[in-house]
């Protein structure tokens, strides 16, 4: 049985690129136990000066777009160039019981075994901190452990994309040449957060359709105001299967990084993200304090029944519960 790790063990292990300790440090971050949370915060405080040097890329796309194969291909290309690549996956929990199928590494056969790669899917359910907060902390750990490219994978549904966009330097959206030729299926929200769009599976019979889709997306983007004069969102085609265009996708990512560094926008984005991070930590802590307050816990079921029975209004019930937390301050 591995021995219990102290704060120093965690910090030294991560900084010396120890895979086992890095993995167990991420477990601390994922844990819902308050003692683990405190340990995780202490670790983050100690290692954060060693983080921040990686290229942080969010990758999204609907199921079936070929995300895993894309990451396998891009990741292998990067490790062969000498990069250290960490892949973090944010998966929504899939079942009623709260359990879930996390990483399906069946399509990351080579990358999952490469000495310069680290792949860690995280469950998104049942923890105190939000998924964004934990992924952000995991990213810090990976950077401190020497990974210089962090790919954060997320599925193309719901809020997880916005959450991931709030912690990366660049958001890559994978698309498929549509079954229909119109753009009705394209979510406007996706175009708003995308920094690079790549139409995957542009191979074989699909090349022409991919080219047509590329034009459609370019037209759609031309109707939107660019967020910054530094960058207009490129629409590329690629095939994770044949490797065509993958290099080009990476070059655009580097191009984006170079330009945003020159203008200072990269540093500014990260400062803004740090402030948002602080804010979400405070919000989370307030929420936790409220729901862990013994008086709130005690009165909660009664208030639920009262609201259900209509004997108290939801607003008054909320007011009463909130006043409990204000009166009784828990020890910090």
């Amino acid at each position, binding site marked *: *049985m591995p021995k219990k790790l102290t704060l120093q063990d965690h910090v030294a292990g991560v900084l010396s690129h120890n895979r086992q300790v890095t*993995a167990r440090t991420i477990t601390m971050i*994922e844990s819902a136990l308050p003692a683990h949370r405190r340990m995780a915060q202490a670790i983050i405080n100690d290692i954060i000066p060693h983080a921040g040097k990686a290229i942080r890329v969010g990758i999204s796309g609907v199921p079936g777009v070929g995300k895993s194969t894309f990451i396998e291909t891009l990741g292998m290309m990067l490790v062969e160039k000498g990069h250290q690549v960490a892949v973090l996956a944010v998966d929504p929990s899939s079942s009623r019981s709260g359990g879930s199928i996390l990483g*399906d590494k069946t399509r990351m056969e080579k990358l999952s075994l490469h000495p310069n790669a*680290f792949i860690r899917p995280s469950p998104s359910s049942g923890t105190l901190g939000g998924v964004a907060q934990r992924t952000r902390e995991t990213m810090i750990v990976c950077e401190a452990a020497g990974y210089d490219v962090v790919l954060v994978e997320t599925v193309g549904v719901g809020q997880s994309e916005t959450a991931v966009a709030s912690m990366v330097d660049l958001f890559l959206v994978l698309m498929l040449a549509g079954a229909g030729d119109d753009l009705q299926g394209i979510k406007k929200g996706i175009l708003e957060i995308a920094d690079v769009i790549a139409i995957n599976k542009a191979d074989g019979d699909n090349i022409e359709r991919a080219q047509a889709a590329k034009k459609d997306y370019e037209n759609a983007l031309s109707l939107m105001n660019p967020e910054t004069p530094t960058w207009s969102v490129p629409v590329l085609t690629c095939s994770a299967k044949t490797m065509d265009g993958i290099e080009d996708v990476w070059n655009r990512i580097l191009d984006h990084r170079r330009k945003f560094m020159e203008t200072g926008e990269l540093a500014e984005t990260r400062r803004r993200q740090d402030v948002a991070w602080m804010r979400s930590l405070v919000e989370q802590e307030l929420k936790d304090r409220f729901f862990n307050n013994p008086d709130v816990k005690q009165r909660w079921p009664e208030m639920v029944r009262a609201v259900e029975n209509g004997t108290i209004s939801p607003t008054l019930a909320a007011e009463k519960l909130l006043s409990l937390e204000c009166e009784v301050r828990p020890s910090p």
Partner: protein
Amino acid sequence: MSFSAETDQIQREIDAFFQARGRRPRLLIGMPVGGNGRRRMNEAATRFARHGFDVDISPAHAAPRQLARMAMENDVHLVGLLSDGDAAIELTGALGDLSRGDIGIIVCARRTPEADGNGPEIPRIDPDDADDVLRLLKEVMTTCPKN
């Protein structure tokens, strides 16, 4: 015990595990070289996820040392193999090499009369058998370190 009563009991055990350890029991489903059937792998994964486990799936035909690395990287409590025999023995060694001999190994399969009493002492767990799953949870709870 009725089916739903058993399911409820599994749910309670998992909840207790979560309360005590801060996360759900995490299991890596692996199909060693020579094993057959990606479908069986997905089926086993789905069953365990429904019970409330967090489940990782390995690439097909992973060598034992590859499974060991993945188990360490994802910091799982258990590796569930789809076949027993040499793979389980090699995996035991490979996990030991990574100083993670604490990670348990099970074989996810129906128990058959001829399977009992043969080969190494790797527990066979049928994910459809609630008693099996409960036994497994109890085992993980006692062996899993608190940190």
